[in-house]
């Protein structure tokens, strides 16, 4: 009997491998080469030197190639090359979702994709099931295949923005630079998109699972990518492992459900619906355990994963315990996050305005990286705290962006200033809510004095407004500042579009 089980297992394994052979699908997998320029967040009117990098993408039909956002972010030129084909064809970005690290690109010559088989999606792979990663990793120009096994399904940070958490699948096959954006197969089906790895662990790669990719594709169907809706509800997990805490919050005995709401941010779509002290019992009909997780595809994942799958405007049913009574509530998924300073941005330029030689920009993780990889040690403490704990400081609330002074272009009107705390609080007594608002105030101010107050600093900068205006043009000319401001929203992306580089 034992022998039979082993044989059965082996036959299943071979059947799966034979059917899987992704080499048969290799002509649907593309090498992507990108040339682009990183943004300069200290002097935002500048671009850094051009660089070239490569990744992988795969055909999903209708002239669309799916890849990672980080493969084509900030691209000024993209080419795709099919396996076995000598030609490199220009491509452009149709849709890009930095929050989920996915992008759809098209080619300028539609004939190139004729007769290419569109790959189809499968489902979330089971733990310990085999997968095959296909792509163009470093070490050669030829297509490469790596076999591995699914190790874990979890809800973790996507490092492209370093601020967004979503569902992901960990596999034990190496995912190296160049693999990014490549398909991960199980049988003939794509079960994920290779996208990141652990640098300190060998053979620990991560793939974007199908539900996240499908949500991205659905989001793009109306011609615009809205992004994963923001939640803005913080919870304390495991509290109700404590029977007395469960009694305090009047949770029915042996319920086994519930995570405690500790904070609902002002920008949350759940604001006014869910309150601090509520106990979340279920989401979309799925019970939330005391660990803050729900059963999903045979695993337990953070309950937020189910919210993430919603498109903006869709309703999410929540079962909530409040003062001992169970309430059935609905939250409309939406984009509420007022600022971007917790993550990297990939807009055409950082938002900024230069006035009288003072360079103002919005605080983002990208700005922090001006201090290098070890910015968490080297950057000013005030900025580290604002970027890592943006909702813990009352002074930071009620703003669309945190505006900072990123540089001083010295001239006779500003030569006296010394940057102590770079985070701007007020301009002429008005709370600075965004770069755009500051730009408008600076442009239209009629006061004789310009006063800038900074957060957690009691030393204001006081200028004669007319003096600053008098040196404005000459300073910009001397320092080569052009344009002198950029106020487009971050959603206006840097990557090349069908119309060309923006």
């Amino acid at each position, binding site marked *: 009997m034992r022998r039979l089980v082993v044989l059965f297992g082996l036959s299943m394994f071979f059947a799966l491998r034979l059917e899987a052979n992704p080499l048969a699908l290799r002509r649907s997998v593309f090498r992507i080469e990108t040339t682009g320029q990183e943004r300069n967040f200290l002097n935002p009117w500048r671009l850094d030197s051009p660089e070239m990098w490569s990744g992988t993408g795969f055909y999903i039909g209708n002239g669309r190639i799916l890849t990672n956002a980080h493969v084509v972010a900030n691209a000024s030129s993209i080419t795709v090359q099919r396996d076995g084909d000598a030609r490199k064809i220009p491509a452009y970005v149709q849709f890009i979702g930095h929050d989920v690290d996915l992008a759809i690109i098209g080619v300028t010559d539609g004939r190139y994709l004729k007769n290419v088989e569109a790959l189809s999606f499968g489902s979330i792979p089971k733990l310990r099931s085999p997968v095959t990663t296909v792509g163009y990793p470093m070490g050669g120009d030829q297509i490469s295949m790596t076999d591995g096994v699914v190790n874990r399904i979890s809800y973790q940070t996507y490092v492209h923005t370093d601020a967004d958490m979503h569902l992901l699948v960990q596999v034990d096959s190496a995912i190296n630079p160049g693999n990014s954006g490549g398909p991960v197969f199980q049988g003939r089906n794509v079960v994920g998109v290779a996208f990141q790895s652990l640098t300190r662990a060998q053979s620990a790669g991560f793939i974007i699972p199908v539900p996240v990719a499908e949500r991205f594709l659905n989001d793009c169907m109306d011609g615009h990518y809205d992004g994963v809706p923001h939640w803005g509800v913080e919870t304390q997990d495991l509290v*109700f492992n*404590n029977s007395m805490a469960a009694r305090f919050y009047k949770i029915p005995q042996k319920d086994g459900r519930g995570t*405690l709401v500790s904070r609902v941010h002002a920008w949350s779509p759940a604001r006014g619906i869910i309150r601090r002290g509520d106990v979340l019992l279920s989401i979309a009909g799925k019970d939330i355990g005391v660990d803050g997780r729900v059963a999903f595809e045979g695993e337990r994942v953070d309950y937020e994963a189910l919210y993430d799958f919603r498109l903006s405007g869709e309703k999410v049913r929540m079962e909530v315990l409040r003062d001992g009574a169970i309430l059935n509530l609905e939250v409309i998924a939406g984009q509420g996050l007022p600022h971007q300073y917790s993550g990297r941005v990939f807009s055409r330029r950082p938002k900024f305005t230069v006035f009288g030689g003072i360079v103002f920009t919005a605080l983002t993780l990208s700005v922090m990286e001006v201090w290098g990889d070890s910015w968490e040690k080297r950057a000013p403490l005030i900025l*580290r705290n604002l970027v890592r704990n943006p909702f813990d400081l009352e002074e930071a609330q009620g703003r669309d962006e945190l505006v900072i002074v990123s540089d001083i272009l010295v001239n006779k009107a500003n030569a006296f200033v010394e940057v102590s705390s770079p985070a701007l609080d007020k301009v002429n007594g008005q709370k600075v809510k965004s770069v755009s608002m500051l730009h408008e105030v600076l442009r239209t101010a009629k006061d004789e004095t310009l006063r800038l107050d900074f957060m*957690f600093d009691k030393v204001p900068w*006081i*200028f004669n407004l007319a003096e600053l205006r008098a040196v404005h043009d000459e300073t910009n000319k001397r320092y080569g500042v052009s344009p002198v401001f950029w106020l487009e929203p971050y959603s206006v992306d840097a990557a090349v579009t069908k119309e060309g580089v923006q």
Partner: protein
Amino acid sequence: MIRLVLLVTLAFTIVAAGPLHRPHNEYSGRDASEVERSVLHLTVTRAVPDPEAPWSTQNLDVAGYAGVVVGENRVLTQASIVSNAVYIQAQKVDDVEKIPMRVTFADYEANLAILSPIEGKELTGVKIMPIGGDIPVGSDVSLISIENERQLRRVEGRAMEVRLRDASLGGLAVPMYSMTGMNRSSCKSDPMIRKGSLIGICQTVAESQPQVITSGVLSHFINEKLNPEGYRGFSSLGVSLHPVRSPWQRKTLGIPAGKGALRVASVNETSPFSDCVKSDDVLHAVDDIAVDHRGFYLHPRWGMMPIGHYVISKYAGDNLSLRFSRAGKVQTCARVLRRYTSQDKLVPGPGNSSTIPHVIFGGMVFQELSVDYLSTFGREWPTKAPIPLMFIYTYLNDATLTRRRLLVLTNVLADEFNAGYEKISHLVLESINGRPVASIEELKIHLKLPGVQRSGAEFAQFEFRNGAEIVLPYQGIDASHKRIAKTYSISQASSFFTR
């Protein structure tokens, strides 16, 4: 066995050869014997409280430092090296006898301490080193250190500039010489001498250059120690002053061109001047000594120095007057200076407390946020300690009359009683049962008051700054404390909350 004997013999040979073997850079010459009789080697054994387990101490730490004989049976050294000392010994470099010492007085803000032999012991054969006056910048000096307990090492250098620097993590800024020609990685309370007199004690090293507390500060400390009316210590204004660099701001504040002035940026609630000076006042003079546009005054020996240096030279209890203008009208305000103490800060500096104020409630360990606690995150604690706590220490460290301390839930000692909360750490406590708390004593008092009644039981409800909340019942807490005391070997009953 043969190997052991050989090793022991070798070790003895090295020790015995110490006094005879004089390296070329050893202190020598006519003053050598006098210096050898004035600079002692201190062996300090410290048992520092463990902020991660505040009911116990860290591993014993034994280290060697220098001390200078400044009076009969009086040795001057740094306070930080003898804080929490359980045993101190002093030894002349040419003597094998070690004299047990005790700390007779310490000022942890100025980071200076006086040691004396324990009762029944005396320092004999030593020479009192006179304390010299402040020296001009550019003077040649010698820094003396003790190596291998037995050798004095002299390094020649020059006092290049005088700056106000924090004497300790307590935040009291005192004048220090910055030395050149003496590249060092650390100081061990090394004395700086010139012409046989003590003119400074090395406090720290900045960019490989020793930073040496000036003799004026040493004299201030020692004279105060001898003051029959008691130690008054160093003082501070409690007023934050900043130069007005903007020409336009100078104009709007009514500061004439060429005139010096400082803008009052803030006044601490605990400042003696809190009732008469306020933000945006313009300070012109301190005790009729005019400040320049940078906030400097003319020091007779060092030239232009920050006005803060003048304040440091005053004693707590002295009168001090500020001349300032408000809306163009000149006013004068005189007040009695208070002693500067970092205990007035929201996050107090290091001290000598043998115990860390704390309380354990159902396994939750609450402590007052302190520099001692932050420094448990290792040598790189400014970048390793939790950012929100470092932020409070750096930017929000002014205590108010109603908020003297911040309480932190540092960790949870896992027990069945606190199941579900065991992973929580480093949270700033805002309130207990709806009542704000500002000290461990206040927390203990509030915990004794009636808690929150819910579902037929009485609970303690803790609310934290980040929105987190912990509820634990009063019922069963004594039993949990017994388990926790046994599991974590906590012998002090006083660590635990009792009603």
